[in-house]
């Protein structure tokens, strides 16, 4: 049947060509961008929404809205908009500002705080917010029966840990309502960051009578009682959450948006498309697909800021040959983080050779680890594997993700090339990955750590022997001692020095290999005001407003941040 076969060929060839064309046309099509009169280019549409509604992508479905039990950023974002703690964070600097407490006194030794409640503050059910609400809420978080995953945030309070670990009872915990408007807090040590801790969602108050009545279901919109700038109007699972302005909030005159809609979109491409099309006004950090990052820097609505977080490789020191410190040093020295960040990550994140991120006031870090292939080979020889000979196969464990995989492939290539050792990469889904890292059943694993408060101890403490976040099997007496001493040290200068010494020990022993310093990378429409990049990637939404005449108004200082040039080494 040659007569009919010929067109068949044509058709086949044509459809293959069509596939290619479709793909090429779709892919290659440059997406339109907008620019303003001053020639600044914007990634997305800059048409101001007609209503006073602020729409954003919350990036995931919040697990729950109980501030004492929650443990995720999407949960926290909503919780901090509908509840308010004793202090609130400044939207720009995160410095503590008066919230439900209008002033506070600190004792000279820094270990006793007395908070004075703002008069006239009420829950949305009309009941006044009292000091007793805070005492009850915090003790509830610490109560081992509550099962709060973030109870550790309160551990600077006297007997907090003991109560949480069933070694003391609630009455011994150092928090007490002296009367309805005065709260006294006693600390274990003079933690200079205590007020910052109070802006954390775990420290938000909860209405005990509502919890008692509805149990786990008290956070459903129909039952929920709150005390913050917004109230939860609706919560449609995996669809949207709607927040409306709380008319009884003490500072409601300064709340400038009537409504906020939060979408739980976890797909990066989808979220970025929504931003581009103007469906959302704000896309928080971590949602631009990694391959796009290098191309985003030219847009005025792409904002970059330093984040207090580290990407690192973690080594299981209980396993041969990684129990040998020289092997770990060899791996550290053979990792070319500069090339990795510049070439693989295209300069979107700065290389970092320290365990603590930058920007701690008064902290002088030790010498960062460096890339030195010669040194690495010498280290490996000292460990008894000259030229990588006889070195067993090791595996880099990652949880499956484009970024982690590319970094792991690059590190694998570097270790192979610089040390001549056999390296595999194994990817696993999230739960299996977590199981392996928590049980320390891996060789080398990709990990990251995000600080909770602006102090080096939020990083260094996790590497103490036996800490649940250590996950390397590493325990160094010298290091543990330095951390413990720093904790009790009242003098800030001496305290920082002890912490710096601890970090030096950590880097020298190399149970962890720092890779890069996290940066926040968000997309914010130019008409959105009061939203700044912050080191904790935390945005108090109370201060957000929409400026329809944004083109006429100069941008407030600090909203246009660019990545600091600082990098290590």
């Amino acid at each position, binding site marked *: *049947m*040659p*007569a*009919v*076969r010929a067109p*068949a*060929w044509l058709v*086949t060839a044509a*459809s*293959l060509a069509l*596939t*290619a064309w479709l*793909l*090429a046309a*779709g*892919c*290659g*099509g440059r*997406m339109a961008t907008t620019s303003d009169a001053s020639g600044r280019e914007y990634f997305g549409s800059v048409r101001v929404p007609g209503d006073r509604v602020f729409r954003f992508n919350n990036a995931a479905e919040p697990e729950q809205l109980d501030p004492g039990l929650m443990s995720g950023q999407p949960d926290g974002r909503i919780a901090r908009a509908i509840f308010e703690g004793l202090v609130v964070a400044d939207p720009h600097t995160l410095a503590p500002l008066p919230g439900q407490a209008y002033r506070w006194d600190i004792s000279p030794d820094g270990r006793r705080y007395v908070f004075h409640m703002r008069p006239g503050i009420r829950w949305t059910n009309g009941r006044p917010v009292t000091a007793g609400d805070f005492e009850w809420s915090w003790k509830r978080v610490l109560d081992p029966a509550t099962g709060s995953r973030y109870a550790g945030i309160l551990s600077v309070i006297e007997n907090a840990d003991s109560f949480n670990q069933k070694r003391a009872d609630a009455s011994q915990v150092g928090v007490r309502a002296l009367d309805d408007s005065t709260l006294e807090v006693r600390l274990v040590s003079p933690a200079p960051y205590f007020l910052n801790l109070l802006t954390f969602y775990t420290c938000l108050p909860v209405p005990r009578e509502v919890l008692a009545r509805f149990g786990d279901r008290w956070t459903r919109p129909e039952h929920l009682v709150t005390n913050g700038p917004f109230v939860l109007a609706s919560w449609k699972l995996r669809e949207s959450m709607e927040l409306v302005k709380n008319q009884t909030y003490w500072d409601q005159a300064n709340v400038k948006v009537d409504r906020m809609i939060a979408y739980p979109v976890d797909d990066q*491409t989808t979220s970025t498309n929504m931003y581009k099309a103007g469906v959302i006004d704000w896309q928080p950090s971590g949602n631009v*697909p*990694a*391959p*796009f990052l290098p*191309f985003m820097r030219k847009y005025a609505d792409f904002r970059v800021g330093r984040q207090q977080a580290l990407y690192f490789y973690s080594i299981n020191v209980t396993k041969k040959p990684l129990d040998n410190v020289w092997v770990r040093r060899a791996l550290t020295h053979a990792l070319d983080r500069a*090339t990795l960040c510049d*070439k*693989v990550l*295209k300069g979107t994140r700065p290389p970092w050779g320290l365990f603590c991120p930058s920007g701690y006031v008064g902290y002088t870090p030790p010498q960062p680890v460096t890339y030195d292939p010669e040194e690495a080979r010498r280290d490996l020889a000292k460990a008894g594997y000259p030229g990588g000979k006889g070195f067993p196969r090791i595996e880099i464990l990652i949880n*499956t993700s*484009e970024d982690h*995989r*590319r970094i*792991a*492939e*690059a590190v*694998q*290539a570097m270790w192979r090339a610089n040390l001549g050792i056999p390296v*595999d*990469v*194994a*990817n*696993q*889904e999230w739960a*299996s990955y977590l199981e392996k890292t928590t049980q320390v059943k891996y060789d080398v694993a990709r990990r990251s750590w995000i600080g909770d408060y602006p102090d080096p101890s939020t990083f260094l403490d996790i590497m103490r022997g036996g800490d649940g976040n250590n996950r390397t099997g590493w325990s160094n007496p010298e290091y543990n001692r330095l951390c413990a001493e720093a904790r009790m040290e009242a003098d800030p200068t001496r305290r920082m020095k002890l912490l710096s010494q601890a970090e030096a020990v950590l880097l020298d022993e190399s149970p962890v290999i720092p890779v890069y310093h996290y940066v926040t990378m968000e997309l914010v429409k130019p008409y959105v005001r009061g939203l700044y990049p912050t080191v904790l990637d935390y945005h108090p939404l109370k201060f957000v407003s929409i400026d329809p005449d944004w083109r006429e108004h100069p941008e407030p200082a600090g909203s246009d941040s660019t990545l600091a040039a600082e990098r290590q080494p």
Partner: protein
Amino acid sequence: MSGRPTSLWSDAMRRLRRNRMAVICGIFLVALAVLCFGAPWVPGLADPTAPNFDLGASPPSSAHWFGTDPLGRDLLARVLYGGRVSLAVGLVATLVSLLIGVSYGAIAGFRGGKTDEIMMRAVDVLYSLPYIFLVILLLVFFSKSLLMLFVALGLVQWLTMSRIVRGQVLSLKQQTFVEAARALGASDWRIVFLHLVPNTLGPVIVYATLTIPAVMLQEAFLSFLGLGVQPPGASWGTLLDDGRKMMTLFPWLVIFPGLALAATLFAFNFLGDGLRDALDPQSRPTGA
């Protein structure tokens, strides 16, 4: 039924050879398989895992015909090396689907009654079990290997096929030629595999060819879970899955693996059509 059984096969081959489209597709597939499995010996082909950090993602050029990925690795090499896993996976899954799926479905349909009921409910159970957990558990109890990958895919790839064949057989077994065969004293086995199964070949071959791309993409999901190819290796599925995330930036990363997959599917499809026509002695194309 014309012709003696011994000449059936050679008859079919003769008919297949006359089908130019099928022959060309067959040659294409063989050439592709040789290229992929022989990739290490293809002269001038780059190392698919060697990164070139300075180059990064680059469009097709004379040095890199298919361009390079963000780590600067040659995409042509990655597609060819990746074809090994993808072709193997496609082939194994198709074979499993044909061998297990067809015979299981044919037996269930032919036996009918309680046997059919139990066999089909077993299929429903397998359909319903959460596949992700099956794979995760395979990974826990066995070390990851190519064999485990095949097991994981084979576990489920025959289910729909068995339902299709059973449906056909339920209907076919009531037809006169089965009664005729039975009257001639043919054994059940003979009736099922020599009379019923050949009459289901049309849908069977169609479904088998459609399985191939589906299974190649499924392999990417298994790689995600940690089974299947592991970095820095690749397969067409994982290449496509990676490429789609940056298809507006580096379209070639989707186009070439996509074309490889599409071309394979087209070839298998036309070969399958030809094979079906060739194997069916009653085949008499109605023409244009």
